């Protein structure tokens, strides 16, 4: 009996059977559920359905794109005609024509994600009950806690990708996420503590490290601890970064600069292949697979060009080895696609994006790193981050623990950190054995969102912290 994957692949293949040029069809069904509660009431419960077929063609060396929300042969073929017409018309302005794309490591068959049944068989009532129990009934664990918000969301996706040059694949996956956000208040000062987790996988995988109540307790503690905190001293400091912050660092500082489309625009990584760009302690990778253990939030078996994803070693022992590619940039650089083309919905064009980005673990322990630090900060609790074309990056953290003479002596307010990507990587002098995926609830924005994860060991380096001048 045919599965839904077989049926969809056959339908798409039927739509392009008479096509002679390059045509790529991507069926994408997305169901997003979310529940949020705060101060004893359900704030929001919603369900979003988006289903359609994306069409991409290559005509006269120029891309044409269209899509339809109507899943039938007539609509898909009409959208193919529309995409071809658009490409034809715009090709008059295209200076550098895209040649025929060489074959890639195409996926063929069906890939069914782990944990789908485990998440979908939980009823809405069970999920609401969990969120309500964490958001509380309006009474809080401390008189200084003023509000607790809790959110649960999940994205279930099915994709089928068929191209005229060989991709023929169906895959499905589910990504649940859980968030807690607490507000503490005292003498007119308000502070926030947040905890969030997210995985590609099931319910058990989501709560494998922390139970919901533990996350709630951590968020409340952060919010109350920060009430008395002050800004750190601004300037360049020795810092130990927790795995979540390492994740932010490698995503923002290195990951974006090695996306081949940014490289072609002149990013800081352009022309540096083969060069020593980081400490020899640093081996940095981006993978569609969840390395070390399952559940990394940015995992995908196949990218949105139908190419099998792989582990891409970007920096090996400090030497820049590879950029991240789609089929077009792979052809331009004379390499194979790294399976990094991703689209958020059927209405989005695939772009080069990261998946799960990390530094490989080293030989030190966290305690050894703290012991060896005379003056510095341990940074943890990721907030947001951004990268710049010149290699300067910025990311923000919730908490900075002051380290003096090998001991943690206090907490200061989390602030933003910045530096030049490769300079900071060259300063890495200690890398821990511990490894953790810790940005599973993160999204990357590049015109359209993408679900990514990042992490690594603890690392020690030097960064500039925003703060006071005296």
């Amino acid at each position, binding site marked *: 009996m045919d599965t839904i994957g077989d049926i969809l692949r056959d339908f798409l293949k039927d739509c392009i059977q008479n096509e002679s040029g390059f045509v790529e069809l991507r069926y994408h069904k997305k169901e997003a559920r979310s529940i949020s509660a705060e101060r004893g009431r359900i704030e929001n419960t919603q369900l979003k359905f*988006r289903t359609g077929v994306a069409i991409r063609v290559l005509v006269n060396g120029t891309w044409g794109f269209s899509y339809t929300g109507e899943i039938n042969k007539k609509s898909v073929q009409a959208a193919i005609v529309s995409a071809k017409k*658009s490409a034809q018309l715009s090709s008059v302005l295209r200076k550098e024509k895209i040649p025929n794309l060489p074959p890639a490591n195409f996926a063929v068959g069906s890939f069914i994600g782990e944990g789908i049944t485990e998440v979908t068989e939980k009823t809405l009532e069970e999920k609401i009950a969990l969120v309500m129990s964490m958001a509380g009934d309006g009474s809080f664990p401390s008189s200084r806690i003023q509000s607790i918000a809790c959110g649960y969301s999940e994205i279930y996706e099915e994709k089928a990708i068929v191209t005229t040059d060989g991709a023929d694949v169906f895959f499905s996956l589910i990504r649940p996420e859980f968030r807690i956000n607490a507000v503490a208040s005292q003498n007119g000062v308000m502070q926030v503590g947040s905890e969030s987790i997210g995985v590609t996988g099931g319910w058990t995988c989501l709560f494998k490290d922390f139970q919901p109540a533990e996350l709630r307790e951590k968020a409340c503690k952060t919010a109350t601890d920060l009430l008395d905190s002050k800004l750190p001293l601004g300037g360049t400091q020795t810092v130990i970064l927790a795995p979540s912050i390492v994740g932010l660092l490698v995503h923002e500082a290195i990951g974006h600069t090695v996306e081949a489309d940014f490289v072609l625009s002149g990013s800081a990584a352009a022309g540096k292949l083969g060069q020593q760009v980081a400490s020899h302690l640093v081996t940095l990778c981006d993978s569609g697979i969840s390395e070390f253990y399952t559940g990394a939030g940015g995992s995908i078996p196949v990218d949105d060009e139908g190419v099998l994803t792989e582990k891409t070693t970007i920096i090996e022992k400090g030497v820049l080895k590879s950029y991240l590619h789609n089929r077009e940039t792979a052809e331009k650089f004379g390499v194979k696609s790294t399976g990094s083309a991703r689209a958020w919905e059927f209405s989005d064009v695939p772009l080069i994006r990261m998946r799960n980005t990390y530094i490989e673990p080293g030989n030190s322990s966290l305690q050894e790193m703290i012991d060896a630090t005379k003056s510095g900060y341990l940074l943890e609790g990721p907030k947001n981050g951004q990268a710049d074309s010149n290699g300067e990056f910025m990311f923000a953290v919730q908490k900075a623990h002051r380290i003096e003479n090998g001991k943690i002596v206090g907490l200061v307010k989390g602030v933003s950190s910045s530096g030049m990507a490769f300079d900071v990587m060259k300063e890495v002098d200690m890398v821990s054995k511990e490894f953790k995926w810790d940005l599973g609830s993160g999204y990357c924005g590049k015109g359209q969102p993408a679900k990514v994860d990042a992490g690594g060991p603890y690392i020690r380096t030097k960064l500039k912290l925003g703060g006071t001048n005296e």
Partner: protein
Amino acid sequence: MITYQQISSKLEETKTYVDGVISKAKKDGISQVEIYSAYSVDTELSIEKNDISTSTHSEDTNFGVRVIENHCQGFVTTNSRDTLYQSIEGARSIARSQNMPDDCVELPEPRSIHPVDGLYLTDLDTFGFEDILNSIRKIFSVRESQFPKVNIDTGSASVSKGFKFIASSTGVMCSEIRGDISASFFGMAVDGNDIGSFDYDSATGRNMAMFQKNLDHALVSFGEKCMGSLNARSIQGFRGSIILTPDTVFNFLGDLLSSMTGTMIRKKRSKFGDKLGQQVTSPLLSIFEDPLIPCFTGSTSFDREGMPTEAKEIITKGVIHQFFYNHFEAKKAGLQQSSGNASGGSSSTPGCGPKQLQILPGKSHLQDILKPTDKTILVNRFSGTSDAVSGDFSGSVKGSFLLEGGEKIPVKEVIISGNMYEVLNRITDVSRERKLLGSSSHVPWIKFADVDITGTDENC
């Protein structure tokens, strides 16, 4: 290209269909249902690395379905009209899954709406693909002739036409047909090994004439901003003044305004809950909203719940005049009706927020503000984090300058940190001149005193 008449026909057809679906729902005992529909036809030509990338033609419809039963709410969105009734049943099922009725959860009764002029100018009917190609030609031409060192990493020119429409079982029924032309560009200057910061700009207009005028300004502004970040150098940190450009002011005030929403106040996440009528910022700051300005891109006659919008004072000389309420938050606050500030679209339940903000000009001339006697950072872009609850902000400044002794020095690796609520009481200048952002909001330049500015440890 689709015409006004064709969009109008599509709207009437959608209204009839949605009306039928709501009637069926009422017959089936679903007494409170609201459907928000957004329809758009877009043609876009994107740019990547100074060349044409992808040409896209698309037509999209999305429905947001809200059902309230026993004072509990369920919400479903779908892009398939065929599943609209199924979505109503799904939303009812979600509402039923909750067992916490709240009397304030209900759909609002209809109120009269006064249309805004100029949301679709009929000469847009003749705007074709060749016009988009010409806009791209102009972008390439200005870059090559005036800013050859600037790389456009990504960009686009597009025309978007469509409608938004809301109908509910309480009798709300309103719609707007809209259309605009827009372009955007994102990139940086590269001069040998010197790579500048990313910057961006955009232009929009209701017809070709408005768009072309705005495009001319935006291209020069983009090129100058990108070039301005070349030759940047590190500086030593200090505590001093910053001047925010209009784009940065607009972003900076986002957290202040989110603290003035009914939602943040009810959840006790705002410092302003008991501050209505009180001074919360420097008296130099005055903000109002006006969603009824003809032809502006943020103009609209009704909000996410189909309630009328209106011009109103938000902060006058530092004193809070008005919070932002949707129907639910207004009821929770003990008010009779919303302030017409339900925010969002077909993909979300109604939130609360401002509509087309305008910031009043000050008394200082911009040229005087830009020649400070004290050491000052001119912040062109802020790349950082801010928190509406605490007011804490911290982040890198981009494409920015140190103004000192009559010199304007491009800087890099500079972080500014502080607390927004404190800094807003340290405004020293607001410019007379204002910039129109996105054909929607007039915003001046604003100078703040006593901000922590972190540089490098030594001059480089």
